[in-house]
Protein backbone atom coordinates (compact mmCIF):
# COMPACT_ATOMS: atom_id res chain seq x y z
CA UNK A 1 0.00 0.00 0.00
CA UNK A 2 1.24 3.46 -0.85
CA UNK A 3 1.92 5.90 1.97
CA UNK A 4 1.35 9.25 0.33
CA UNK A 5 -1.41 10.15 2.75
CA UNK A 6 1.03 10.02 5.65
CA UNK A 7 3.01 12.90 4.18
CA UNK A 8 2.57 16.51 5.14
CA UNK A 9 0.09 18.08 2.73
CA UNK A 10 2.81 20.46 1.51
CA UNK A 11 4.80 17.40 0.42
CA UNK A 12 1.71 15.79 -1.14
CA UNK A 13 1.09 19.02 -3.02
CA UNK A 14 4.67 18.99 -4.32
CA UNK A 15 4.24 15.45 -5.64
CA UNK A 16 0.99 16.44 -7.33
CA UNK A 17 2.60 19.49 -8.95
CA UNK A 18 5.54 17.36 -10.11
CA UNK A 19 2.95 14.91 -11.48
CA UNK A 20 4.51 12.05 -9.53
CA UNK A 21 1.07 11.25 -8.21
CA UNK A 22 -2.50 12.11 -9.17
CA UNK A 23 -5.51 13.00 -7.05
CA UNK A 24 -6.93 9.60 -7.96
CA UNK A 25 -3.92 7.92 -6.32
CA UNK A 26 -4.73 9.80 -3.12
CA UNK A 27 -8.40 8.92 -3.28
CA UNK A 28 -7.69 5.26 -3.94
CA UNK A 29 -5.27 5.17 -1.04
CA UNK A 30 -7.83 6.78 1.25
CA UNK A 31 -10.60 4.42 0.13
CA UNK A 32 -8.32 1.45 0.66
CA UNK A 33 -7.38 2.63 4.15
CA UNK A 34 -11.03 3.20 5.03
CA UNK A 35 -11.88 -0.30 3.84
CA UNK A 36 -9.04 -1.78 5.86
CA UNK A 37 -10.09 0.16 8.96
CA UNK A 38 -13.79 -0.54 8.58
CA UNK A 39 -14.14 -1.61 12.19
CA UNK A 40 -13.30 1.97 13.26
CA UNK A 41 -16.74 2.89 11.93
CA UNK A 42 -15.41 6.37 11.17
CA UNK A 43 -17.65 6.96 8.17
CA UNK A 44 -21.40 6.79 7.77
CA UNK A 45 -21.39 7.36 4.02
CA UNK A 46 -18.61 7.09 1.45
CA UNK A 47 -18.87 9.42 -1.52
CA UNK A 48 -19.32 6.90 -4.35
CA UNK A 49 -18.53 9.56 -6.94
CA UNK A 50 -15.21 10.58 -5.45
CA UNK A 51 -13.04 8.53 -7.86
CA UNK A 52 -14.82 10.11 -10.79
CA UNK A 53 -14.41 13.55 -9.21
CA UNK A 54 -10.70 12.87 -8.70
CA UNK A 55 -10.28 11.86 -12.35
CA UNK A 56 -11.96 14.99 -13.67
CA UNK A 57 -10.34 17.55 -11.40
CA UNK A 58 -8.36 19.11 -14.24
CA UNK A 59 -4.87 20.57 -14.27
CA UNK A 60 -3.12 20.87 -10.91
CA UNK A 61 -2.88 24.43 -9.64
CA UNK A 62 0.60 24.98 -8.11
CA UNK A 63 -0.75 27.85 -5.99
CA UNK A 64 -3.52 25.79 -4.45
CA UNK A 65 -2.16 23.75 -1.57
CA UNK A 66 -5.42 21.86 -1.25
CA UNK A 67 -5.80 20.76 -4.85
CA UNK A 68 -6.78 17.09 -4.92
CA UNK A 69 -6.41 16.57 -1.16
CA UNK A 70 -8.98 14.18 0.33
CA UNK A 71 -11.08 15.46 3.21
CA UNK A 72 -13.75 13.95 5.46
CA UNK A 73 -16.83 15.94 6.45
CA UNK A 74 -18.83 15.51 9.63
CA UNK A 75 -22.26 14.18 8.78
CA UNK A 76 -24.13 17.19 10.14
CA UNK A 77 -22.75 19.41 7.37
CA UNK A 78 -24.93 19.19 4.27
CA UNK A 79 -23.44 18.02 0.99
CA UNK A 80 -25.39 18.31 -2.23
CA UNK A 81 -26.20 14.90 -3.66
CA UNK A 82 -24.36 13.11 -0.85
CA UNK A 83 -26.44 11.59 1.93
CA UNK A 84 -26.38 13.63 5.14
CA UNK A 85 -27.80 11.81 8.16
CA UNK A 86 -26.67 13.60 11.34
CA UNK A 87 -26.21 9.98 12.48
CA UNK A 88 -29.96 9.76 12.91
CA UNK A 89 -32.58 7.36 11.63
CA UNK A 90 -34.82 10.35 10.94
CA UNK A 91 -32.44 11.53 8.18
CA UNK A 92 -30.95 8.24 7.08
CA UNK A 93 -32.39 8.64 3.57
CA UNK A 94 -31.79 12.38 3.25
CA UNK A 95 -29.98 13.56 0.11
CA UNK A 96 -29.54 17.35 0.32
CA UNK A 97 -30.17 19.49 -2.76
CA UNK A 98 -27.75 22.21 -1.61
CA UNK A 99 -24.25 22.56 -0.19
CA UNK A 100 -23.19 24.07 3.10
CA UNK A 101 -21.12 27.21 2.56
CA UNK A 102 -17.98 25.47 3.86
CA UNK A 103 -18.60 22.63 1.43
CA UNK A 104 -18.80 25.13 -1.43
CA UNK A 105 -15.47 26.55 -0.30
CA UNK A 106 -13.93 23.09 -0.13
CA UNK A 107 -15.19 22.28 -3.61
CA UNK A 108 -13.89 25.62 -4.90
CA UNK A 109 -10.45 24.59 -3.65
CA UNK A 110 -10.85 21.30 -5.55
CA UNK A 111 -10.54 19.19 -2.47
CA UNK A 112 -12.07 15.72 -2.66
CA UNK A 113 -14.80 14.81 -0.23
CA UNK A 114 -14.19 11.17 0.64
CA UNK A 115 -17.25 10.77 2.79
CA UNK A 116 -19.33 11.77 5.76
CA UNK A 117 -18.10 10.94 9.22
CA UNK A 118 -19.80 9.33 12.16
CA UNK A 119 -20.90 11.41 15.14
CA UNK A 120 -23.27 11.58 18.05
CA UNK A 121 -26.83 11.82 16.78
CA UNK A 122 -27.42 15.49 15.96
CA UNK A 123 -24.10 16.19 17.73
CA UNK A 124 -25.65 15.43 21.11
CA UNK A 125 -23.04 13.61 23.12
CA UNK A 126 -19.37 13.49 24.01
CA UNK A 127 -18.48 9.96 22.97
CA UNK A 128 -20.17 9.52 19.55
CA UNK A 129 -21.98 6.55 21.06
CA UNK A 130 -25.41 8.07 20.44
CA UNK A 131 -24.97 7.52 16.69
CA UNK A 132 -27.74 5.54 15.00
CA UNK A 133 -24.94 3.81 13.10
CA UNK A 134 -23.03 2.66 16.18
CA UNK A 135 -20.04 4.30 17.85
CA UNK A 136 -16.73 4.87 16.04
CA UNK A 137 -13.71 3.33 17.76
CA UNK A 138 -10.63 5.11 18.98
CA UNK A 139 -7.80 4.16 16.55
CA UNK A 140 -5.28 4.30 19.40
CA UNK A 141 -7.22 1.79 21.51
CA UNK A 142 -10.31 0.24 20.04
CA UNK A 143 -11.85 -0.41 23.43
CA UNK A 144 -11.96 3.34 24.08
CA UNK A 145 -14.29 6.01 22.83
CA UNK A 146 -13.19 8.52 20.22
CA UNK A 147 -14.92 11.27 22.11
CA UNK A 148 -17.61 13.30 20.51
CA UNK A 149 -19.56 14.49 18.97
CA UNK A 150 -17.12 14.73 16.01
CA UNK A 151 -15.80 11.24 16.80
CA UNK A 152 -15.83 9.95 13.24
CA UNK A 153 -13.77 12.89 11.98
CA UNK A 154 -11.29 12.36 14.82
CA UNK A 155 -11.06 8.64 14.07
CA UNK A 156 -10.57 9.34 10.36
CA UNK A 157 -7.67 11.71 10.98
CA UNK A 158 -6.10 9.85 13.92
CA UNK A 159 -6.52 6.55 12.05
CA UNK A 160 -4.67 8.12 9.07
CA UNK A 161 -7.60 7.50 6.72
CA UNK A 162 -7.57 11.11 5.55
CA UNK A 163 -5.26 14.00 6.40
CA UNK A 164 -8.03 16.51 7.05
CA UNK A 165 -11.55 16.58 8.41
CA UNK A 166 -14.25 19.02 9.39
CA UNK A 167 -15.98 18.85 12.73
CA UNK A 168 -18.43 21.03 14.56
CA UNK A 169 -18.27 22.23 18.13
CA UNK A 170 -21.23 23.31 20.27
CA UNK A 171 -19.83 22.44 23.68
CA UNK A 172 -16.51 20.79 22.91
CA UNK A 173 -17.43 18.52 20.02
CA UNK A 174 -14.22 19.23 18.08
CA UNK A 175 -11.82 19.55 21.02
CA UNK A 176 -13.06 16.59 23.02
CA UNK A 177 -12.50 13.92 20.32
CA UNK A 178 -9.31 15.64 19.13
CA UNK A 179 -8.05 15.32 22.68
CA UNK A 180 -9.01 11.64 23.02
CA UNK A 181 -7.45 10.69 19.68
CA UNK A 182 -4.36 12.90 19.78
CA UNK A 183 -5.00 15.24 16.86
CA UNK A 184 -5.18 19.01 16.39
CA UNK A 185 -8.71 20.37 16.54
CA UNK A 186 -9.78 24.00 16.53
CA UNK A 187 -13.11 25.58 17.33
CA UNK A 188 -12.94 28.99 15.64
CA UNK A 189 -14.51 32.14 17.09
CA UNK A 190 -18.30 32.09 16.77
CA UNK A 191 -19.01 33.98 13.55
CA UNK A 192 -15.66 33.16 11.93
CA UNK A 193 -17.01 30.31 9.77
CA UNK A 194 -20.45 30.31 8.14
CA UNK A 195 -22.98 27.99 9.74
CA UNK A 196 -25.10 27.84 6.60
CA UNK A 197 -25.60 24.14 5.95
CA UNK A 198 -24.52 23.03 9.40
CA UNK A 199 -27.54 21.25 10.85
CA UNK A 200 -28.25 23.30 13.95
CA UNK A 201 -28.02 21.88 17.45
CA UNK A 202 -27.41 24.95 19.63
CA UNK A 203 -27.57 27.77 17.10
CA UNK A 204 -25.92 30.39 19.27
CA UNK A 205 -22.97 28.08 20.02
CA UNK A 206 -22.39 25.87 16.97
CA UNK A 207 -19.26 26.45 14.96
CA UNK A 208 -17.52 24.41 12.25
CA UNK A 209 -13.77 23.90 12.54
CA UNK A 210 -10.76 22.00 11.16
CA UNK A 211 -9.48 18.70 12.58
CA UNK A 212 -6.00 17.78 11.36
CA UNK A 213 -2.74 16.02 12.13
CA UNK A 214 -0.62 19.17 12.41
CA UNK A 215 -0.91 22.79 13.48
CA UNK A 216 0.18 24.07 10.09
CA UNK A 217 -2.44 21.99 8.27
CA UNK A 218 -5.04 23.16 10.72
CA UNK A 219 -4.27 26.84 10.19
CA UNK A 220 -4.10 26.38 6.42
CA UNK A 221 -7.48 24.67 6.34
CA UNK A 222 -8.97 27.41 8.50
CA UNK A 223 -7.70 29.92 5.93
CA UNK A 224 -10.14 28.58 3.38
CA UNK A 225 -13.12 28.01 5.68
CA UNK A 226 -13.53 31.52 7.04
CA UNK A 227 -15.35 34.58 5.79
CA UNK A 228 -18.55 36.51 6.06
CA UNK A 229 -21.41 34.71 4.34
CA UNK A 230 -24.46 36.58 3.11
CA UNK A 231 -26.50 33.47 3.91
CA UNK A 232 -25.56 33.53 7.60
CA UNK A 233 -26.30 36.69 9.59
CA UNK A 234 -24.15 35.40 12.44
CA UNK A 235 -21.03 35.24 10.26
CA UNK A 236 -18.73 38.19 10.69
CA UNK A 237 -16.85 40.37 8.26
CA UNK A 238 -13.14 40.41 9.13
CA UNK A 239 -10.10 41.47 7.14
CA UNK A 240 -8.49 38.54 5.43
CA UNK A 241 -5.55 37.12 7.34
CA UNK A 242 -3.18 34.17 7.08
CA UNK A 243 -3.64 32.00 10.15
CA UNK A 244 -0.24 30.37 9.62
CA UNK A 245 1.58 33.68 9.88
CA UNK A 246 2.66 33.39 13.54
CA UNK A 247 3.53 29.71 13.37
CA UNK A 248 7.04 29.01 14.69
CA UNK A 249 7.47 32.46 16.21
CA UNK A 250 9.17 32.92 19.54
CA UNK A 251 6.77 32.86 22.49
CA UNK A 252 9.00 34.88 24.77
CA UNK A 253 6.90 37.37 26.73
CA UNK A 254 3.61 35.71 25.81
CA UNK A 255 1.18 36.24 28.71
CA UNK A 256 -0.73 33.08 29.57
CA UNK A 257 -3.38 32.50 32.25
CA UNK A 258 -4.11 29.14 33.85
CA UNK A 259 -7.38 29.30 35.81
CA UNK A 260 -7.30 27.41 39.10
CA UNK A 261 -10.53 25.63 38.24
CA UNK A 262 -8.79 23.94 35.29
CA UNK A 263 -6.30 22.22 37.58
CA UNK A 264 -8.68 21.60 40.47
CA UNK A 265 -9.56 18.20 41.87
CA UNK A 266 -11.99 17.46 39.07
CA UNK A 267 -8.93 16.75 36.87
CA UNK A 268 -7.08 13.42 37.14
CA UNK A 269 -3.47 13.47 38.26
CA UNK A 270 -2.00 12.09 35.04
CA UNK A 271 -3.65 14.85 33.04
CA UNK A 272 -2.77 17.59 35.52
CA UNK A 273 0.88 16.45 35.66
CA UNK A 274 1.16 16.51 31.93
CA UNK A 275 -0.30 20.00 31.71
CA UNK A 276 2.08 21.24 34.40
CA UNK A 277 5.01 19.81 32.47
CA UNK A 278 3.96 21.89 29.50
CA UNK A 279 3.65 24.91 31.78
CA UNK A 280 7.26 24.44 32.94
CA UNK A 281 8.44 24.10 29.38
CA UNK A 282 6.60 27.25 28.29
CA UNK A 283 8.09 29.18 31.17
CA UNK A 284 11.52 28.05 30.05
CA UNK A 285 10.70 29.45 26.66
CA UNK A 286 10.06 32.83 28.24
CA UNK A 287 6.26 32.77 28.43
CA UNK A 288 4.73 34.46 31.48
CA UNK A 289 2.26 32.09 33.09
CA UNK A 290 0.01 32.97 36.03
CA UNK A 291 -2.42 30.77 37.87
CA UNK A 292 -5.55 32.89 38.22
CA UNK A 293 -9.05 32.93 39.69
CA UNK A 294 -11.96 32.99 37.32
CA UNK A 295 -15.62 33.14 38.32
CA UNK A 296 -18.55 31.42 36.66
CA UNK A 297 -16.53 28.59 35.06
CA UNK A 298 -18.31 26.05 37.24
CA UNK A 299 -21.75 27.31 36.19
CA UNK A 300 -21.04 26.97 32.47
CA UNK A 301 -22.27 23.39 32.16
CA UNK A 302 -25.64 24.29 33.65
CA UNK A 303 -25.95 27.31 31.36
CA UNK A 304 -24.91 25.14 28.45
CA UNK A 305 -27.56 22.53 29.26
CA UNK A 306 -30.28 25.14 29.45
CA UNK A 307 -29.32 26.96 26.25
CA UNK A 308 -28.55 23.95 24.06
CA UNK A 309 -31.52 21.88 25.07
CA UNK A 310 -33.88 24.83 24.63
CA UNK A 311 -32.46 25.75 21.22
CA UNK A 312 -32.30 22.11 20.16
CA UNK A 313 -35.96 21.52 21.03
CA UNK A 314 -36.84 24.21 18.52
CA UNK A 315 -34.12 23.43 15.96
CA UNK A 316 -35.12 19.77 15.77
CA UNK A 317 -38.86 20.50 15.55
CA UNK A 318 -38.52 20.59 11.75
CA UNK A 319 -37.84 16.86 11.64
CA UNK A 320 -41.47 15.88 11.38
CA UNK A 321 -41.72 13.60 8.35
CA UNK A 322 -43.45 16.17 6.15
CA UNK A 323 -40.94 17.68 3.72
CA UNK A 324 -37.93 15.35 3.98
CA UNK A 325 -36.56 12.55 6.08
CA UNK A 326 -38.23 9.59 7.68
CA UNK A 327 -42.01 9.40 8.08
CA UNK A 328 -43.74 6.68 10.05
CA UNK A 329 -46.02 4.26 8.21
CA UNK A 330 -49.79 4.48 8.30
CA UNK A 331 -50.37 7.55 10.44
CA UNK A 332 -53.93 8.66 9.84
CA UNK A 333 -53.71 11.95 11.70
CA UNK A 334 -51.18 14.73 11.85
CA UNK A 335 -50.66 14.28 15.59
CA UNK A 336 -49.93 10.59 15.22
CA UNK A 337 -47.64 11.27 12.27
CA UNK A 338 -45.58 13.70 14.36
CA UNK A 339 -45.39 11.65 17.53
CA UNK A 340 -44.63 8.32 15.84
CA UNK A 341 -42.22 9.75 13.27
CA UNK A 342 -40.21 11.50 15.92
CA UNK A 343 -40.41 8.66 18.37
CA UNK A 344 -39.17 6.15 15.81
CA UNK A 345 -36.76 8.57 14.13
CA UNK A 346 -34.88 9.99 17.11
CA UNK A 347 -32.64 8.12 19.50
CA UNK A 348 -32.76 8.23 23.26
CA UNK A 349 -30.30 11.09 23.87
CA UNK A 350 -32.03 13.36 21.36
CA UNK A 351 -35.45 12.61 22.82
CA UNK A 352 -34.29 13.43 26.32
CA UNK A 353 -32.73 16.71 25.31
CA UNK A 354 -35.65 17.96 23.24
CA UNK A 355 -38.15 16.99 25.90
CA UNK A 356 -36.20 18.87 28.55
CA UNK A 357 -35.65 21.72 26.08
CA UNK A 358 -39.40 21.99 25.52
CA UNK A 359 -39.88 22.02 29.27
CA UNK A 360 -37.30 24.78 29.69
CA UNK A 361 -39.17 27.05 27.28
CA UNK A 362 -42.63 26.14 28.46
CA UNK A 363 -44.69 28.97 29.97
CA UNK A 364 -43.00 30.76 32.86
CA UNK A 365 -40.03 28.36 32.76
CA UNK A 366 -38.60 30.38 29.90
CA UNK A 367 -37.88 33.22 32.32
CA UNK A 368 -36.64 31.02 35.13
CA UNK A 369 -34.26 29.03 33.01
CA UNK A 370 -33.63 30.39 29.55
CA UNK A 371 -33.61 34.14 30.13
CA UNK A 372 -31.51 33.73 33.24
CA UNK A 373 -29.06 31.45 31.41
CA UNK A 374 -28.58 34.13 28.76
CA UNK A 375 -27.79 36.69 31.45
CA UNK A 376 -25.27 34.46 33.17
CA UNK A 377 -23.83 33.74 29.75
CA UNK A 378 -23.16 37.44 29.40
CA UNK A 379 -21.40 37.38 32.77
CA UNK A 380 -19.19 34.46 31.72
CA UNK A 381 -18.27 36.37 28.59
CA UNK A 382 -17.41 39.47 30.60
CA UNK A 383 -15.26 37.36 32.89
CA UNK A 384 -13.27 36.05 29.91
CA UNK A 385 -12.88 39.58 28.59
CA UNK A 386 -11.59 40.69 31.98
CA UNK A 387 -8.90 38.01 31.95
CA UNK A 388 -7.99 38.80 28.36
CA UNK A 389 -7.19 42.38 29.33
CA UNK A 390 -4.06 41.03 31.02
CA UNK A 391 -3.36 37.85 29.10
CA UNK A 392 -2.93 36.77 25.48
CA UNK A 393 -4.12 33.21 25.98
CA UNK A 394 -5.74 30.95 28.57
CA UNK A 395 -4.66 27.32 28.88
CA UNK A 396 -5.76 24.19 30.72
CA UNK A 397 -6.51 20.54 30.10
CA UNK A 398 -9.17 19.67 27.50
CA UNK A 399 -10.76 16.91 29.56
CA UNK A 400 -10.47 15.74 33.10
CA UNK A 401 -9.07 12.40 31.99
CA UNK A 402 -8.00 10.32 29.01
CA UNK A 403 -10.44 8.55 26.68
CA UNK A 404 -12.77 6.28 28.69
CA UNK A 405 -13.92 2.79 27.74
CA UNK A 406 -16.84 2.42 25.38
CA UNK A 407 -20.23 1.85 27.03
CA UNK A 408 -19.16 3.43 30.32
CA UNK A 409 -21.85 5.96 30.86
CA UNK A 410 -24.59 5.16 28.45
CA UNK A 411 -26.98 5.07 31.31
CA UNK A 412 -26.01 8.29 33.03
CA UNK A 413 -27.79 11.31 31.55
CA UNK A 414 -25.62 13.66 33.57
CA UNK A 415 -22.12 12.40 32.75
CA UNK A 416 -22.44 13.09 29.05
CA UNK A 417 -22.32 16.76 29.90
CA UNK A 418 -19.71 16.63 32.66
CA UNK A 419 -17.20 15.20 30.23
CA UNK A 420 -17.06 18.63 28.58
CA UNK A 421 -16.89 20.65 31.76
CA UNK A 422 -13.55 22.26 30.80
CA UNK A 423 -14.36 23.10 27.20
CA UNK A 424 -17.94 24.32 27.49
CA UNK A 425 -17.20 27.77 29.00
CA UNK A 426 -15.46 28.74 25.75
CA UNK A 427 -18.61 28.22 23.68
CA UNK A 428 -20.59 30.41 26.07
CA UNK A 429 -18.30 33.32 25.22
CA UNK A 430 -17.99 32.37 21.53
CA UNK A 431 -14.17 32.28 21.81
CA UNK A 432 -11.70 30.30 19.69
CA UNK A 433 -10.00 27.32 21.33
CA UNK A 434 -7.86 24.35 20.36
CA UNK A 435 -6.97 20.91 21.56
CA UNK A 436 -3.30 20.17 20.85
CA UNK A 437 -1.66 16.84 21.80
CA UNK A 438 0.91 17.05 24.59
CA UNK A 439 1.81 13.37 24.85
CA UNK A 440 0.21 10.27 26.27
CA UNK A 441 -0.36 8.58 29.58
CA UNK A 442 1.44 5.40 30.59
CA UNK A 443 -0.97 3.31 28.48
CA UNK A 444 -0.40 5.36 25.35
CA UNK A 445 -3.64 7.30 25.48
CA UNK A 446 -3.36 10.89 24.31
CA UNK A 447 -3.57 13.94 26.52
CA UNK A 448 -4.27 17.36 25.02
CA UNK A 449 -3.76 20.95 26.02
CA UNK A 450 -6.63 23.38 25.71
CA UNK A 451 -5.59 26.77 24.36
CA UNK A 452 -8.20 29.52 24.47
CA UNK A 453 -7.72 32.76 22.54
CA UNK A 454 -9.33 36.18 22.42
CA UNK A 455 -12.22 36.55 20.01
CA UNK A 456 -10.89 36.38 16.44
CA UNK A 457 -7.31 35.84 17.61
CA UNK A 458 -6.90 32.31 16.28
CA UNK A 459 -3.43 33.22 14.96
CA UNK A 460 -2.16 33.57 18.54
CA UNK A 461 -3.45 30.08 19.38
CA UNK A 462 -1.57 28.66 16.38
CA UNK A 463 1.58 30.46 17.50
CA UNK A 464 1.59 28.78 20.91
CA UNK A 465 0.38 25.45 19.50
CA UNK A 466 3.18 25.29 16.93
CA UNK A 467 5.70 25.86 19.68
CA UNK A 468 4.27 23.01 21.76
CA UNK A 469 3.94 20.74 18.74
CA UNK A 470 7.69 20.90 18.15
CA UNK A 471 8.45 19.41 21.55
CA UNK A 472 5.53 17.25 22.68
Amino acid at each position, binding site marked *: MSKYLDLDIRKIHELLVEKKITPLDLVDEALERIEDAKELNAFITINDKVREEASTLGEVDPNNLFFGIPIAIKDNIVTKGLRTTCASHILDNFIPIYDATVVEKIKDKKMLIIGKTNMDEFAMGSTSETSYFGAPLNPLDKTKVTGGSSGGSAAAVAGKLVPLALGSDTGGSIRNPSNYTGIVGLKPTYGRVSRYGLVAYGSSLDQIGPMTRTVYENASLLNILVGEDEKDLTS*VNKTKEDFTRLIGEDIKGLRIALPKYFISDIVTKEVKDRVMEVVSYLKEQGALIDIIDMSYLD*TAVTIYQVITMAEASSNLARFDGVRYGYRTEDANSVDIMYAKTRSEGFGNEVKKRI*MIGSYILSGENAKTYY*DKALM*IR*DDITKEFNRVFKDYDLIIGPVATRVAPLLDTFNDDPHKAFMDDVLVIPVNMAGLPAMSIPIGTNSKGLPIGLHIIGKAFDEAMIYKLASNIEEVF
Partner: protein
Amino acid sequence: MDKLSREEVLHVAHLARISLTDEEIEKYRRDLKVLMDDIDKIKEVKDFDSEMMYTPINDNTRLREDVVGEMLSAKDVGVNAPKKNGSFIEVPVMINE
Protein backbone atom coordinates in the same frame (compact mmCIF):
# COMPACT_ATOMS: atom_id res chain seq x y z
CA MET B 1 -34.17 8.70 44.07
CA ASP B 2 -36.81 11.21 43.03
CA LYS B 3 -38.68 10.57 39.84
CA LEU B 4 -41.08 12.53 37.71
CA SER B 5 -44.68 11.39 37.59
CA ARG B 6 -45.99 9.64 34.49
CA GLU B 7 -48.08 12.72 33.75
CA GLU B 8 -45.07 15.01 33.91
CA VAL B 9 -43.19 12.79 31.47
CA LEU B 10 -46.17 12.60 29.13
CA HIS B 11 -46.58 16.37 29.23
CA VAL B 12 -43.04 17.13 28.06
CA ALA B 13 -43.23 14.27 25.56
CA HIS B 14 -46.32 15.90 24.10
CA LEU B 15 -44.61 19.30 23.92
CA ALA B 16 -41.80 17.66 21.93
CA ARG B 17 -44.29 15.54 19.92
CA ILE B 18 -42.80 12.23 20.92
CA SER B 19 -44.87 9.15 21.70
CA LEU B 20 -43.56 6.87 24.43
CA THR B 21 -44.08 3.24 25.39
CA ASP B 22 -44.77 2.39 29.02
CA GLU B 23 -41.24 1.14 29.33
CA GLU B 24 -39.84 4.43 28.02
CA ILE B 25 -42.06 6.43 30.34
CA GLU B 26 -40.63 4.51 33.27
CA LYS B 27 -37.06 5.12 32.08
CA TYR B 28 -37.62 8.84 31.49
CA ARG B 29 -39.23 9.33 34.88
CA ARG B 30 -35.72 8.92 36.22
CA ASP B 31 -33.57 10.27 33.34
CA LEU B 32 -35.53 13.46 32.87
CA LYS B 33 -35.49 14.06 36.59
CA VAL B 34 -31.69 13.91 36.56
CA LEU B 35 -31.58 16.55 33.83
CA MET B 36 -34.18 18.69 35.55
CA ASP B 37 -32.08 18.62 38.70
CA ASP B 38 -29.12 19.67 36.57
CA ILE B 39 -30.84 22.69 35.13
CA ASP B 40 -32.34 23.60 38.49
CA LYS B 41 -28.82 24.47 39.61
CA ILE B 42 -29.32 27.68 37.69
CA LYS B 43 -31.65 28.79 40.46
CA GLU B 44 -28.70 28.83 42.83
CA VAL B 45 -26.77 31.37 40.77
CA LYS B 46 -27.34 34.63 42.58
CA ASP B 47 -25.02 37.28 41.21
CA PHE B 48 -26.11 38.06 37.75
CA ASP B 49 -26.99 41.40 36.38
CA SER B 50 -26.58 41.47 32.68
CA GLU B 51 -28.31 41.70 29.36
CA MET B 52 -29.54 38.54 27.76
CA MET B 53 -26.73 37.36 25.51
CA TYR B 54 -28.66 35.40 22.95
CA THR B 55 -25.83 35.39 20.44
CA PRO B 56 -22.14 36.29 20.66
CA ILE B 57 -22.62 38.54 17.62
CA ASN B 58 -23.26 42.23 18.21
CA ASP B 59 -23.23 45.31 15.98
CA ASN B 60 -24.14 43.31 12.98
CA THR B 61 -27.33 44.80 11.54
CA ARG B 62 -27.22 43.23 8.13
CA LEU B 63 -30.13 43.37 5.74
CA ARG B 64 -30.66 41.65 2.41
CA GLU B 65 -31.54 43.70 -0.67
CA ASP B 66 -35.05 42.96 -1.87
CA VAL B 67 -34.13 41.00 -4.97
CA VAL B 68 -35.61 37.67 -6.04
CA GLY B 69 -33.05 34.86 -6.07
CA GLU B 70 -32.96 31.30 -7.29
CA MET B 71 -35.91 29.07 -6.59
CA LEU B 72 -36.51 25.33 -6.76
CA SER B 73 -38.59 23.54 -9.35
CA ALA B 74 -41.80 21.96 -8.07
CA LYS B 75 -40.09 18.62 -8.64
CA ASP B 76 -37.17 19.53 -6.39
CA VAL B 77 -39.55 20.80 -3.72
CA GLY B 78 -40.94 17.29 -3.47
CA VAL B 79 -37.74 15.38 -4.10
CA ASN B 80 -37.16 14.48 -0.44
CA ALA B 81 -40.80 14.42 0.63
CA PRO B 82 -41.99 11.06 1.98
CA LYS B 83 -45.38 11.58 0.33
CA LYS B 84 -46.23 13.63 -2.77
CA ASN B 85 -49.47 14.28 -4.58
CA GLY B 86 -48.88 15.95 -7.94
CA SER B 87 -46.91 19.08 -7.18
CA PHE B 88 -48.14 19.07 -3.59
CA ILE B 89 -46.63 17.50 -0.51
CA GLU B 90 -49.19 15.30 1.20
CA VAL B 91 -49.93 14.83 4.90
CA PRO B 92 -52.79 13.17 6.79
CA VAL B 93 -55.75 15.53 6.91
CA MET B 94 -55.13 18.55 9.12
CA ILE B 95 -57.73 19.37 11.72
CA ASN B 96 -59.47 22.40 10.32
CA GLU B 97 -57.96 25.39 12.08
